[in-house]
């Protein structure tokens, strides 16, 4: 069973499927779920995690909810929460989760003090109500934190040892002004690799509720596929977290043109060539299935 643990789908902006627009996903742009399914089926991928893109408001999730309903048991969903609702996110989180298939919420910051030398009181962090409610309702935190907040995360993980936390994109926490797009429209992150935030992150392997996605290599590497300059970092993550807490993903659709979906299905074999078959099965899907509790049947 192969699971692509992080993809994005979006429809053209319409009244049926309202969403925000950006140069990366303009009004008439689309990455339909049928195109994703076509790529998955051609490459033997069974299930995927649809990560919301196109805005955090409830109505912005309409296409994501449509995909989850149309193809039950094929996908799980990750939603977004508007910043103005962080102080009282319960209703927003529940309404999305109750619509079916949305199992967690993505955060790009955690909202504590930037100065690591001041006392850290997690109850003062701006995302604390989200973590607290995730703990109550067993929602997953899908984390792509900025660098300024990286050192705050261990305090939250410690405070909520039952919240399942999935670090996005190789556990990189990008610095400010690090985001750009390349000439193919793909995210491009200017960051040292391995990231300096690793000193605040790698020790989280001690917490069994923390997992890491092996995805987004194209955005961090200085090389073309298979991104050999990231091999050592992949091995470090494997050594710390073990295959049972690593999840392969493609970051569809940004990778369709370069390197192509099929090549990304093989990227783990290229970067972690010494995996045994059990480890490979875990990273390519079984870890995501267990950690995220995918439905058994397709």
């Amino acid at each position, binding site marked *: 069973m192969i699971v692509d643990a992080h993809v994005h789908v979006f429809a053209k902006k319409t009244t049926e499927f309202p969403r925000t627009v950006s140069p990366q996903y303009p009004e008439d742009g689309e990455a339909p779920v049928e195109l994703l399914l076509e790529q998955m089926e051609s490459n033997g991928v069974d299930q995927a995690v649809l990560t919301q893109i196109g805005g955090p408001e409830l109505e912005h999730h309409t296409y994501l909810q449509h995909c989850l309903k149309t193809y039950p048991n094929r996908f799980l969903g990750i939603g977004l929460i508007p910043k103005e609702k962080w102080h009282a996110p319960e209703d927003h989180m529940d309404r999305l989760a109750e619509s079916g298939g949305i199992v967690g919420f993505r955060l790009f910051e955690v909202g504590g003090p930037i100065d*690591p030398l001041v006392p850290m009181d997690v109850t003062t962090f701006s995302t604390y109500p989200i973590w607290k409610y995730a703990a109550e309702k067993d929602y997953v935190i899908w984390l792509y934190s900025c660098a*300024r907040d990286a*050192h705050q995360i261990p305090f939250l993980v410690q405070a909520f040892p039952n919240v399942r936390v999935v670090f996005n994109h190789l556990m990189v926490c990008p610095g400010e002004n690090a985001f750009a797009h390349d000439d193919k429209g793909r995210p491009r992150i200017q960051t040292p690799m391995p990231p300096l935030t690793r000193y605040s992150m790698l*020790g989280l392997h001690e917490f069994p509720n923390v997992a890491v996605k092996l995805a987004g290599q194209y955005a961090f590497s200085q090389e073309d596929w298979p991104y050999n300059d990231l091999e050592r970092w992949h091995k470090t993550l494997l050594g710390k977290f073990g295959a049972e807490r690593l999840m392969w993903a493609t970051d569809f659709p940004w990778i369709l043109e370069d390197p192509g979906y099929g090549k990304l299905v093989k990227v783990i074999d290229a970067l972690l060539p010494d995996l045994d078959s059990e480890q490979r099965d875990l990273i390519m899907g079984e870890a995501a299935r267990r950690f995220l509790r995918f439905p058994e049947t397709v």
Partner: protein
Amino acid sequence: MKRPTDVERQEWEDNGVLFLESAIVGEELTRLQALFDRSAAEAKEDWLAGIAKGTKPAAHFDIPNPLEKDDFFIDLIDHPSWYGYLMDFSDEDLILLGPQVRTLPVLPISYVGWHPDVPHTTPLHMKAQIYVEDVPANGGAFGYVPGSHKPDAGACPVVRPLDTMPGHKVYPGKAGDVVLFNSYGWHTSMVNTSINPRKSIILIYEKWSKDRVATDRYVGIADKCTTPDRRRLFSLDAR
């Protein structure tokens, strides 16, 4: 300059670690503490900016180029309380690789985990960790696995949690205490769950070898290194 006793030398050979109590005391310690705090305050703004940019780690705060900031830091490198030990262990052929004037914030995890610094294929690699303030066992104290510096120790295991490492010993200490250790051995900073950041200075040394000498490394402080011993220690002359 203090030299190891036969007992200390045997302990070093057996365990790979030596704890020197009260290596810095009195007025000298007070001066070191004041210099540390002043230097950290001067560097903090740049550190915080670097954290936001992702170019500096938040999990530890190193004062950049300390040897160029104050001669007192230079005097720590060949301090009589431990320099003689390191010279003895390196067969009188020692070079400095670098200082780390380091503040370790409170954090629920260790920033490094158990690790050796170098493989046995490199020349003898040693560190001196000076506690600038008191470091309790839960305050990011140094941890070491005695005997793990030996070539037959095998690979350093990944353990969860950190304090389940078999055979490890934690070295809490008072301000002015110093831990000398062989960096082939498995070591870590234990988790700092206290209420205070840890303040310590880590000096990195190695037995001289041609590959590790960089005559330009400390050229900025060459005028402070006028004796033959210092010029050798700071790699200012090629051999």
